C-alpha cells in the first residue's frame, strides 16, 4: 500500500508540482492581500480566509477537468482560484464592483463561473452540499463522465443536509465527490466541542460510501486521493468522500479574533502546506531559490494587476434594471 502510494506521488511531474506550488502561493498571497484591503476598507463584507487550507482546494481541483462542477462554501476563494477563475474579477467582486465576478450581487461568498465549472460559493453552512448532488445528477442524466464536487467543513457535517445528501448520493450512485475540509473549527467552536464522534469519514462509510482520510496540508496526498477517487467515479459512477484534515489559521470571519489553545496555531504553521510541498521539491532537487523567487514574483505581478483592475472597476448602477429586478 505504502509503496503504491509513494510511486503515485512520484509520478506527479515536476511541471505539475510547480503549478501546484504556484497555485498554493497564489491563494496564500491573494488571501493576505484581501486581508490588507479589508483593513483599508476596500474589500468589504463577510470575508472568510482560506489560509492554511490551500492544499485541499489545489489538490482536489488538480484532479478535475475544467467542465467538472465545484460547489463551494463561504470560505471559497481558494476553490475559485484552483478552478482558475480570473483573480481580477474575483477581487472586484470582493469590492462590490459592477465588473466583479457576480456583478456585485454576491460578494466573497458567492463567486460563480460556470464556464470553469464553479457553481457558486454558499453563505449557508451545509447549504451547498445537496447542490453538489445536482451537478452529479446532471452528468449522470446526460451520460457524460463529469464529476461534481461538494466542498464543506467539519461544521457542515453536523447539518442535516450532510446525512441526507450522503444517502441520496449512494442510493442514486451519483458521481459526487464530498470533500470535508476538517479545519478544526465551526465558526469559533473547536471540533471536539461540536462533534461527538471525531471520525467524519466513518460517518460517510456508514452510509455506504468509500471514504479516504487524508492529510489536508499535503497537496500531493490530497491530489493523489482525489485523482484515485475521481478516476473511479468517472469509470464506475457512484460517490466518493475525502476527509481532509487541516487547520484554519485565520479567525472564522474577517479580522474578528478568536481564541486558540496556546501553541496550537504555531504547531500547525509548522505543517504549512506551502512549506511541505516546497520542502519536498527542494529535497528532490527540483526547486531552487531562484525558481521559487520567480514564482513569487509572478504571483505578485498577477495580484498587483488584479488589485489595479478591481480598484478601477466601476460601481454597479442602482438605476439599472438588472440590479433592481431578479427576473430572467
Amino acid at each position, binding site marked *: 500500500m505504502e509503496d503504491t502510494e509513494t510511486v503515485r506521488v512520484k509520478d506527479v511531474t515536476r511541471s505539475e508540482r510547480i503549478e501546484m506550488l504556484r497555485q498554493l502561493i497564489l491563494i496564500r498571497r491573494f488571501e493576505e492581500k484581501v486581508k490588507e484591503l479589508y483593513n483599508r476598507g476596500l474589500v468589504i463584507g463577510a470575508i472568510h480566509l482560506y489560509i492554511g487550507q490551500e492544499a485541499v482546494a489545489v489538490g482536489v481541483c488538480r484532479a478535475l477537468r475544467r467542465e467538472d462542477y465545484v460547489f463551494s462554501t463561504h470560505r471559497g476563494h481558494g476553490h475559485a482560484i484552483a478552478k482558475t477563475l480570473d483573480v481580477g474579477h474575483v477581487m472586484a467582486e470582493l469590492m462590490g464592483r459592477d465588473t466583479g465576478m*457576480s456583478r456585485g450581487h454576491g460578494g466573497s461568498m458567492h463567486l460563480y463561473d460556470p464556464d470553469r465549472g464553479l457553481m457558486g460559493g454558499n453563505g449557508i453552512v451545509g447549504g451547498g452540499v445537496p447542490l453538489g448532488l445536482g451537478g452529479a445528477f446532471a452528468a449522470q442524466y446526460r451520460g457524460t463522465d463529469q464529476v461534481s464536487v461538494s466542498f464543506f467543513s467539519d461544521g457542515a457535517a453536523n447539518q442535516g443536509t450532510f446525512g441526507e445528501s450522503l444517502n441520496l448520493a449512494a442510493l442514486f450512485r451519483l458521481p459526487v465527490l464530498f470533500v470535508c475540509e476538517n479545519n478544526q473549527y465551526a465558526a469559533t467552536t473547536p471540533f471536539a466541542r461540536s462533534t461527538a464522534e471525531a471520525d467524519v469519514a466513518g460517518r460517510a462509510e456508514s452510509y455506504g460510501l468509500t471514504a479516504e482520510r487524508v492529510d489536508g496540508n499535503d497537496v500531493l496526498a490530497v491530489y493523489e486521493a482525489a485523482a484515485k477517487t475521481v478516476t473511479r467515479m468517472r469509470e464506475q459512477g457512484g460517490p466518493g468522500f475525502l476527509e481532509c484534515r487541516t487547520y484554519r489559521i485565520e479567525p472564522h470571519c474577517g479580522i474578528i479574533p478568536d481564541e486558540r489553545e496556546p501553541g496550537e496555531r504555531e504547531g500547525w504553521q509548522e505543517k504549512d502546506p506551502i512549506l511541505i510541498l516546497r520542502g519536498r521539491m527542494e529535497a528532490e532537487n527540483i526547486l531552487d531559490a531562484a525558481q521559487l523567487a520567480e514564482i513569487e514574483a509572478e504571483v505578485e505581478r498577477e495580484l498587483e494587476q488584479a488589485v489595479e483592475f478591481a480598484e478601477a472597476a466601476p460601481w454597479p448602477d442602482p438605476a439599472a434594471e438588472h440590479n433592481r429586478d431578479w*427576473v430572467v
Partner: protein
Amino acid sequence: MEGKRTIWYKTAINEAMREEMERDENVFVIGEDVDIFGGVFKITKGLVERFGNRRIRGTPISEAAFFGLATGAAMCGLRPIVEIMYVDFALAGMDQLINQAASSCYMSGRKVKVPIVFRGQYGSGTREAAQHSRSIESWFVNTPGFKVVMPSTVYDAKGLLKSAIRDDNPVLYLENRVMYTRKQEVPRGEWLVPLGQAAVRREGGDITVVATGGAVQKALTAAEELAGTVEAEVIDPRTLDPLDMDTILASVRRTGALLAVQEGVVKAGFAAEVIRRVSEEGFDSLKRPPRALGAWDVPVPFSPVLEDAAIPQAETIRSAILEVLGERR
C-alpha cells in the same frame, strides 16, 4: 385537435408534465413516491411507465437533499419539476428553496439560471390539521426569486404549468388539494397560459373581489348569491408574482370598491399586498375603505367546526362584500 372533453384538475397537471417531457429531454420529475406509486395523489400516474426511472425519480423522505439536488441540476442546465407531497413538508427543505433556488441566479450576476418548478398541493378543508393544511403562497411572494402560480381552473392548471416549466426562473406552482377531482370541459391538445396575466372570472360593476386559489370558487359562489343586489367582479390573479396589477386597477377604477381574499393567514399576506398596491397605485379610484380577508391568525385547526370557521368560506366572503359596500344584511 377539434372538440372538447371533460377532465380532472389533477389530470390536467399530469398532461402538462407529460407533454413538456415529450417536448424537452431536459425536463424530469423528482419527488417522494412519484415513481412506484405515481405520487400519493396520483398526479404523476403513468409517467414512470412512459419515461422510465431516469426521468421520473422517486426519492427518500429527504426534502433538503432532493430540493438541493434539483436546484443544482437546474443550475447545470436541466429543468426539474419537483413534487412536494404536501407544501407543509417544504419547510424541511426551506433553505434550499429560499437561500439556494430563489437566490442563486441573482447572486451570481445571472451567470447561472435556475429553471425549476416546485409543485405541490396545499389547502384546507380536509381535516388534516396545521402541518398538512398550510397555505404558503404569501411567504414566496415575499421572497425575491420565485414566481408564484395558483391555478383555480382545470384549463389553467395545465396551461400555467406548461408555462412554468418553460420559464427560466424558479416557479412555485401551488395545487389546490380540494380541486384535484374537480372536472371541467377543456380543449384537446396543447395550450399555454402565460404567467403574469389575471383572469376576470365574473364581471360586475359594484365591487372588485380579488381571490386566489381555493378562494376563487368561493368568491364566485358568494357573487352569484348576491347577484341582482350587488354585482361583484371576481378577479383571479392566477400568478401572484408577477402580479397583473393592470387588470386589478382597471376593475377598481370601474367599481370603486375592493375586497381581496385568500385562504392563507391575512396578516402580512398576499391579500394585504393587493390592498397595498391598489392603495399606492389606484387610491383615487377607491370610494370606500378596501378590505383584506384571510384565515384566522392561528395554525389551521383540526376540528371541522373550527377549520371551517378559521378559513374564509363563501358565506364569509359574501358578508365581507356587503361590509365593504356598507350594506349589512
